[in-house]
C-alpha cells in the first residue's frame, strides 16, 4: 500500500509510522512530533507490565505473516489454546459471527489495554501485515457485514477511533478480568485472525481506522486497490476460514483435558453477550478502571484530541451515545467517511512543484505523446524502407482519379439542349432517380411484408430450387446410365455381328487380321505376366522342376493344379472387386456380357429410384407447411414425372435392345421384363428376378448373401459370367490337350475363361521349356568350356522356338565373348589389344596425378649441411634431430585435402588463379549477410540475351521511379 511513502501526504505522523517495526516503538516514545507517542512528561510506569508484554508479543507475532508462520512451532501451544477457545465460543453460541466478534473484542481489548499507542502500533502492524502478506484490509462486503456491529459501541470517554473495537471490547474486558490467560488467548486469537482473513475482519477495521487517521490522503486511492486485492483473496480467506473451522471442530475432541478453559470461555461469552445488549454497567466500570491500567486519562484524551482533529464526524458523535446507537446505522458508512476526510484533507493541498520540475514532467508527457504519434508511422516507414521499388507518387490522390457512377450522376446537370430535353422527358415520365426510389419504396410498403415473411418466402424459393435441382440431377444420371449402357451394348453387338473367329480360321481368311489378333493376345499375355509376379512358370520352383520323365509328369500335374487354383482365386478376387464398385465406369472386362451390362443398367436405375423414394420420404417429413403447398408439390411432381418417363423409356429401350438377341439369353430378357413391370417396387423386384441364377453356380452363393444393395448387381452379373463357361468350355475344351494354339473362342464369354485357360496352359509349357532350356544352357556352357569350336546344338534348337531366349542368349554372347562364340571372340580381343599396345593411358594418368599431388603437397626441406653445427670426432653421436631453422617449409595442400582426392579419374588443380582472383572480393558487400547470398544475386543475368523481354524489363527497373517533371509530395497521413 505504501501509505506512508507518499511524499505529498500531509500528516506528520505518517512518516514515523512507516518506519521499520523494530525501531518504531522506541521512536514513538521518544519522538515528540509523533502524535501517538506518549509525552515524556507522562509516566510510563502507568502501563501494566502485562499490557506491555502483550504488546510486544503482538508486535512480534504480527510483524509479518511469514515470520509468524515460521514461529508457529514456538507458539504452538498458544495456537492450540486459541483454537480451543474459539471452538468453545462456537459451542457456547454456535454462531460464527459471535466468534468473530469475540476476536474483535480481544483485539480491541488489547488495544484498550495498551492505550492509544497500542492502537497505533496495531495500525502499524497491520500495515506491515498488509505490505508483507498482501492481505489487505476489509473487502466491501465485509464492511457491510461489520457495520451493524458498530452501533453497539458505546464510547463515552474513549476515542472515537476505538469505538468499534471498544464496543466489542466490553466482552473482552470481561474475559480479561477472570483470568490472566485470557490475555494470551487474545494474542492467540490475533494470530488466528491474522492468518484467516475473515476472522480478523475486526482487527482490520482497526487498521482501516488507524489508516484513516494516518494516511487519509492515500486512503481513497488505496481503497480501490485494496478492494480489488481483497476480492482476489476473499476466496482464499474464506476457504481458510472454513478449514480452520473444521480444524477447530476436531480439536476439542482431541483435547478433552482443556474442558476447564471451555467452561470459563463459555462464561465469558455469556458475559460478552450481556455486555452487547446492555452497554453500561461492566463496561463503564472497566473503562473507569482502564486509565489506571493503561495510562492516565489525560494522555488518552490528548490522543483523542489529536485524532479528533482528523476524524471527528457525525457517526462518531452518534455512536458515542447509547441512545443514538440506532441512528448511526442510518449514517453514511465508512467509505463516505473516507470521502469526507479527503475533503477535509483537501484543505491541505500539497505545495505545487517547482516550475522546473513541473515543466519537465509536462515535457516528458508531451514527448511521449509525440513519440506515440511517431510510432504510428512505423508501419508505413517500414514498408517504404523495405520496398523493392518506389514509384512516386506513393500515395494516390484521395479524391482524384476516376469518379464512381453515383458521383457522376449526382453532379449531373443538363448542359446542352439535347440533355435538357431528355431530362425534361424523363421528369415527365417520372423516371428520375428520386422518383424511382420512391416508387420502389412504395411498392415495398404496399406488399406489407414483414421481415419474417420475406425470409420465409425466400426460403421457400430456395427449397423449390433445390427440388428442381434434384429432378435435374436425376435426369442427368438417367441419361448417363442410358448412354453408357447403350454404348456398351452396341459394342457387344458389334462384336457379335462379326463374331470372333478362331485364330486359325481368321488366319485363313485374313492373315493380317489374324496376326493383329495374335499380337493383341500376346500383349494381353505379356501384361498378365507382368502383373503376376508369383507365376508358377517363372519361380525358382518351376525352374527346378527339370527332372526325369516320370517326375516331370507329376510336377506338371502339380503345376497345373496350382495354376488352376490360382486362376480360380483370381477370378474370385476380380468378381469381388467388381461387386464392390458397381458404379465404376471402367469395368469393361467384367461387364463384357450384354446381360450383365443390362442388369447393371437396371440396377443403377433401381438404385436411383430408391434414392429418390428416400428423398421424397424425407421431403414429406421435413417439408412441413412449405412442401405441402400446392405449387411446390405440383412443380416437384411435374419434374419427377418427366424424369420417371425418361427412365421408363430407357428401360424399355434397353429391353428392346435385348429382344433382338439370340435364344440363349432369352431368359435374361424375360427376367428383365419383370423389373420393368415391377418398377414401382424397385429393389424387391430385382431381388426376385435374380433368384434362380445363383443355383446354377454354387461357388458364388456366398456373394448373394451380402445385404447391401450395391453388391447385388455383382451377385447378378457374376453368375451370368460364370455359368456359360460351365456349359461349353469346361465340357469340350481341354486346354492341356492342345499345345501351342490358343483356344479360339467363338464368343467373348468363352474367350474369357478359355483365354485364361489357354494362358495358364501356355505358362506351364513355357515354364517347362525354360526349365529344359536352363539345363541345356548349363550344358552348353560346360561344353563351351571344354570345346571351343562348334556351337551347341541345344541352343540352336531353342533359338528356333523362343525369340526371347534367343535375344537373351545373344546378349550374353556379346557381354562375354568367351561364353558362346569361341575363337572369334578371342581373336577380336587380341586384335584390340594389339591395336592399343603400349598405350597405357590409365597408368600414365595415375602417374601424372601422383606427380601433381606431390608437387602441391607441403614440403619440408632439410638445408642443414652435414658436419656443421655438430660435434665431430671419435665418440661423437650423430644428432638425429635437425635444427628446425634449417628446415625450409613450403606451404602446399595436403593430398587428403585436395578436391580430387576422392576422384580417381580427374586432376583438379589447386593453384591459385591470379587473374581470376582479381575479380574476387575481400569483404562481403553491405546488404548481404553471407557469401551464398551474394553469389545468388549473380545467379540470374540481367541482359536481354538471357532473359525474356518482360524479364529483362522487370529485372532492370530502378528502385525509385518517378514521373518526369511531377512534384513529389511528402508522405501524407492516411490513418
Amino acid at each position, binding site marked *: 500500500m505504501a501509505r506512508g511513502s507518499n511524499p505529498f501526504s500531509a500528516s506528520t505522523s505518517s512518516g514515523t509510522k512507516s518506519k521499520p517495526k523494530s525501531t518504531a516503538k522506541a521512536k514513538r516514545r521518544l519522538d515528540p512530533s509523533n502524535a501517538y507517542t506518549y509525552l515524556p512528561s507522562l509516566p510510563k510506569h502507568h502501563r501494566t507490565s502485562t499490557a506491555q508484554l502483550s504488546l510486544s508479543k503482538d508486535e512480534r507475532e504480527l510483524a509479518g505473516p511469514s515470520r509468524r508462520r515460521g514461529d508457529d512451532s514456538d507458539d504452538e501451544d498458544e495456537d492450540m489454546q486459541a483454537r480451543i477457545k474459539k471452538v468453545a465460543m462456537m459451542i457456547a453460541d454456535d454462531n460464527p459471527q459471535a466468534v468473530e466478534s469475540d476476536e474483535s473484542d480481544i483485539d480491541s481489548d488489547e488495544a484498550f489495554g495498551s492505550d492509544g499507542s497500542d492502537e497505533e502500533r496495531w495500525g502499524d502492524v497491520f500495515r506491515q501485515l498488509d505490505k508483507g502478506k498482501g492481505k489487505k484490509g476489509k473487502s466491501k462486503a465485509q464492511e457491510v457485514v461489520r457495520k451493524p456491529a458498530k452501533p453497539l459501541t458505546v464510547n463515552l470517554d474513549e476515542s472515537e477511533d476505538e469505538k468499534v473495537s471498544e464496543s466489542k471490547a466490553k466482552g473482552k474486558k470481561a474475559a480479561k478480568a477472570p483470568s490472566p490467560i485470557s490475555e494470551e488467548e487474545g494474542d492467540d486469537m490475533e494470530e488466528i485472525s491474522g492468518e484467516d482473513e475473515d476472522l480478523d475482519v475486526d482487527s482490520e477495521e482497526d487498521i482501516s481506522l488507524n489508516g484513516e487517521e494516518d494516511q487519509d490522503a492515500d486512503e481513497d486511492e488505496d481503497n480501490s486497490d485494496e478492494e480489488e486485492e481483497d476480492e482476489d483473496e476473499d476466496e482464499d480467506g474464506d476457504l481458510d476460514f472454513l478449514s480452520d473451522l473444521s480444524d477447530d471442530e476436531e480439536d476439542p475432541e482431541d483435547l478433552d483435558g482443556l474442558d476447564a478453559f471451555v467452561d470459563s470461555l463459555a462464561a465469558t461469552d455469556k458475559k460478552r453477550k450481556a455486555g452487547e445488549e446492555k452497554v453500561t454497567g461492566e463496561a463503564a466500570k472497566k473503562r473507569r478502571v482502564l486509565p489506571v491500567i493503561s495510562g492516565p486519562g489525560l494522555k488518552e484524551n490528548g490522543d483523542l484530541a489529536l485524532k479528533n482533529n482528523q476524524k471527528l464526524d457525525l457517526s462518531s458523535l452518534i455512536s458515542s451515545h447509547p441512545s443514538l446507537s440506532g441512528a448511526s446505522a442510518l449514517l453514511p458508512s465508512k467509505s463516505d467517511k473516507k470521502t469526507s476526510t479527503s475533503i477535509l484533507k483537501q484543505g491541505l493541498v500539497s505545495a505545487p512543484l517547482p516550475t*522546473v520540475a513541473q*515543466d*519537465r514532467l*509536462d*515535457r*516528458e508527457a*508531451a*514527448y511521449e*505523446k*509525440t*513519440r506515440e*504519434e*511517431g*510510432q504510428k*508511422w512505423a508501419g*508505413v*516507414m517500414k514498408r*517504404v*524502407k523495405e520496398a523493392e521499388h*518506389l514509384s*512516386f507518387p*506513393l500515395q494516390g*490522390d*484521395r*479524391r*482524384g482519379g476516376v469518379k464512381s457512377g453515383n458521383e457522376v450522376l449526382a453532379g449531373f446537370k443538363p448542359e446542352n439542349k439535347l440533355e435538357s430535353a431528355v431530362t425534361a422527358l424523363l421528369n415527365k415520365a417520372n423516371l428520375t432517380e428520386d422518383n424511382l426510389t420512391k416508387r420502389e419504396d412504395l411498392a415495398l410498403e404496399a406488399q406489407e411484408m414483414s421481415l419474417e415473411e420475406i425470409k420465409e418466402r425466400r426460403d421457400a424459393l430456395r427449397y423449390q430450387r433445390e427440388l428442381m435441382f434434384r429432378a435435374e440431377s436425376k435426369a442427368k444420371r438417367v441419361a448417363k446410365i442410358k448412354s453408357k449402357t447403350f454404348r456398351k451394348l452396341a459394342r457387344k453387338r458389334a462384336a457379335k455381328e462379326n463374331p470372333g473367329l478362331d485364330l486359325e480360321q481368321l488366319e485363313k481368311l485374313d492373315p493380317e487380321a489374324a496376326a493383329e489378333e495374335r499380337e493383341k493376345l500376346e500383349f494381353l499375355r505379356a501384361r498378365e505376366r507382368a502383373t503376376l509376379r508369383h507365376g508358377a512358370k517363372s519361380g525358382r520352383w518351376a525352374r527346378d522342376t527339370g527332372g526325369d520323365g516320370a517326375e516331370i509328369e507329376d510336377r506338371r500335374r502339380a503345376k497345373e493344379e496350382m495354376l488352376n487354383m490360382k486362376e480360380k482365386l483370381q477370378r474370385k478376387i476380380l468378381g469381388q472387386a467388381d461387386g464392390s464398385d458397381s458404379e465404376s465406369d471402367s469395368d469393361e472386362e467384367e461387364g463384357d456380357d450384354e446381360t450383365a451390362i443390362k442388369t447393371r443398367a437396371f440396377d443403377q436405375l433401381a438404385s436411383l429410384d430408391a434414392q429418390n423414394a428416400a428423398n421424397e420420404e424425407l421431403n414429406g417429413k421435413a417439408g412441413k407447411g412449405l412442401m405441402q403447398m400446392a405449387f411446390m408439390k405440383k412443380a416437384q411432381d411435374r419434374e419427377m414425372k418427366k424424369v420417371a418417363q425418361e427412365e421408363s423409356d430407357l428401360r424399355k429401350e434397353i429391353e428392346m435392345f435385348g429382344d433382338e438377341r439370340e435364344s440363349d439369353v432369352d431368359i435374361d430378357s424375360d427376367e428383365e421384363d419383370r423389373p420393368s413391370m415391377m418398377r414401382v417396387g424397385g429393389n424387391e423386384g430385382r431381388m426376385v428376378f435374380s433368384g434362380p441364377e445363383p443355383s446354377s453356380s454354387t461357388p458364388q452363393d456366398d456373394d448373394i448373401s451380402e445385404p447391401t444393395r450395391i453388391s447385388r448387381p455383382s451377385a447378378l452379373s457374376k453368375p451370368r459370367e460364370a455359368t456359360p463357361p460351365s456349359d461349353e468350355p469346361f465340357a469340350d475344351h481341354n486346354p492341356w490337350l492342345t499345345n501351342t494354339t490358343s483356344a479360339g473362342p467363338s464368343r467373348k464369354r468363352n474367350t474369357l475363361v478359355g483365354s485364361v485357360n489357354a494362358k495358364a496352359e501356355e505358362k506351364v509349357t513355357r515354364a517347362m521349356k525354360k526349365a529344359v532350356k536352363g539345363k541345356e544352357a548349363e550344358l552348353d556352357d560346360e561344353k563351351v568350356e571344354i570345346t571351343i569350336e562348334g556351337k551347341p546344338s541345344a541352343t540352336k534348337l531353342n533359338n528356333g522356338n523362343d525369340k526371347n531366349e534367343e535375344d537373351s542368349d545373344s546378349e550374353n554372347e556379346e557381354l562375354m565373348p568367351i561364353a558362346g562364340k569361341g575363337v572369334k571372340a578371342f581373336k577380336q580381343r587380341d586384335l584390340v589389344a594389339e591395336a592399343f599396345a603400349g598405350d597405357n593411358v590409365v597408368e600414365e594418368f595415375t602417374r601424372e596425378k601422383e606427380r601433381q599431388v606431390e608437387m602441391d603437397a607441403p614440403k619440408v626441406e632439410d638445408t642443414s649441411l652435414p658436419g656443421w653445427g655438430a660435434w665431430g670426432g671419435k665418440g661423437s653421436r650423430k644428432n638425429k634431430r635437425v635444427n628446425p631453422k634449417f628446415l625450409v617449409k613450403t606451404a602446399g595442400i595436403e593430398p587428403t585435402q585436395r578436391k580430387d582426392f576422392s576422384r580417381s579419374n580427374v586432376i583438379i588443380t589447386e593453384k591459385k588463379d591470379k587473374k581470376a582472383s*582479381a*575479380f574476387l*572480393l575481400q569483404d562481403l*558487400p553491405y546488404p548481404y549477410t553471407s557469401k551464398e547470398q*551474394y553469389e545468388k*544475386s*549473380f545467379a540470374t*543475368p*540481367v*541482359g*536481354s*540475351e*538471357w532473359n*525474356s*523481354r518482360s524479364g*529483362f*524489363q522487370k*529485372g*532492370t*527497373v*530502378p*528502385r*525509385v521511379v*518517378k514521373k*518526369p*517533371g*511531377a*512534384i*513529389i*509530395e*511528402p*508522405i*501524407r*497521413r492516411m490513418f
Partner: protein
Amino acid sequence: MISRSLDDHLPSSSTAPHPLQRNLAPHLHPFQKPREYTRAMTAVKIDRMFAKPFVDALGGHQDGVYCLGKDPRRVAVVAGGGGDGEVIVHSLALRRPLLKIPNAHKGMVGGICWTSEAKDGKRGMITAGKLDGTIKIWRSKLFAPGLKDDESFIGNEFASGNRLESMDNLDNAGAIGENGFDLNENEDDGDEEVGGGLTMDFKKRDRLGENLEPTMTYTSKNGFNGIDHHRQDNIFSTASNTVQIWDENRSNPLSTLQFGNSLETVTKVKFNQSETSVLASVGNDRTMCLYDIRTGKAERRIVMQFLSNDLSWCPTLPTTMLLASEDHNLYTFDIRNLNSPSQIYKGHVGGVMGCDWSPTGEEFVSGSYDRTIRLWNRESGKSRDVYHTKRMQRVFDVTYTPTADFVLSASDDGNVRIWKSNASKKLGPVSTKERQSIEHRQKLIERYSAEKGVRSVKERRHVPQSIHNATKLKREMIESRKVKEDRRRDHSRKGRDKPKAERKKTVIVEQK
C-alpha cells in the same frame, strides 16, 4: 525467290513490342558473367563520362546568397535571400529572376518560405530579416506567372479534393514562361499585372520589384534566423532566440516555444511535413529541440558535441530528421529515439551549412563551408557524389527541387546554382529504348559495384586540391587521434576508458 512477311519483323501495333529476332537458348550465349562484367565496366565508365552535373548559375544578387526558399508547390521557382537584404525570386525554367525585391530587409535575410495558398492569382512569400527583426509577407502575381484566371487554392489542398486543378496550375506556373500573360494589356492596372507578364522587360520588372510592398509586416526585437511554413495551415514558425508560431493573419505570435528558460539563439526551425504539428529547431547552444504545436511545448532537447547549422525532415519517413553539423558530418535522428543518431554521414571537410532531403526521401543533399555540395544515399554513410566548381564559394544553403531532379545551392559568391541531382542523367525526353538501356546499365553498375574495377571507376571523384588536401589532413588527424587514444588506453588501467562507439559520442545529453 525470297519472300518475307512484314508481320515477322514489325510490331503488330505501334505500342506492341518489336518482334524478337533472337534465339534465347542459353548455350548460344555463353560467358554470361564475364560479358556482363565487361558491360558493367563500360556502363560505369559511360556514366562517369556523361557526368555533367552543373546546369546553370542564377546571378543577380549583389551580395552572397545566404538562404534559399523553394516554392514547394511549384516545380521551378526559388527565392534567394542575399546578405544585403535583397530577395530575388528565380525561375529555374527561364533561368532568370521573376522578381527582385532589392530592399526586402535591412541587413541579411534570415529565411524565406512560401505560404501554403494562393489567392487571386497571387502567391505569397514570407521573408524574415536577420538583423532588422521583421517578417514580411509578399504577395504578387509576379511570383506565379502562368497562374491563370485568378485561380486560387487553399492551404490544405492536399487534403481537400480540389487539388487536381489548382495543383496542376501551380505546377506549371512559372515553369513555362511562354504561358505568361502579356503585360501591356493590363498596364493600367498599376504596377502589378495579371498573371505576371513574363514578356516585360527587365527595367519594368525591376521597378515593379522595387515598388512592391509587403502585405503584412511583423516586427520583433530579435532578428530571425530561420523561418518555415506549416504544410497546410496558415501558420509559420520563426527562429530567433525562441521559436515562435505565427498566424499569417495576426500580428502577434500565436505562441512562443522554448525549452525551459533557454534564450540561446535558435538558428533554424523546420516543420515536419507529414506529422505536421511537429517541428524541430537547432540552436547555437549545440542543441536540437523538438516541439509540438498541439501540446504547445518544447518536448525534448539533445545537446550535441558541435552545433548544427541546419535540419531537414525526411518527407517519406516522418520520424527521421537530418542535422547538418558544424563537425563536418551529417546525422539522421529518429525522433522516437534521440539518444543516438541512426546514421552518421561523413565526407565534408568543412562545417555543413545546409541540407535538404530529396522529395523521394531516399537521398539528400548537403552544402558545406568547404565549397562543395555532396549528395548522399540515406542508407550509406559515404557520399554518393560531390559537386564543386571553381567559382563557387562557401555554400550556405542547398535545396532539392520538388521534382527531385535538381539541386540548388546558394553560396557566398552571390549565385544560386542549379545542379542535376543525378550527374549523368540526360535532360530532355528519353525514348523507351534509351530508357531501357540506361536502366540496364544502372542495374549492371549496381550489381557489380562491389567489384574492384567497377567500384574504383564509380567512386572516383576529382575534388579541388584544397579539398583533397584537407581530406588527407583530416584523415591523418583522425588516425593519429585514434592511435593516441589507443596508446593511452594501453597504458591506463584496464577497463578504465573503453572505446566509445562513434554514434554514442554524438549526443552529449538528452534533456527531458
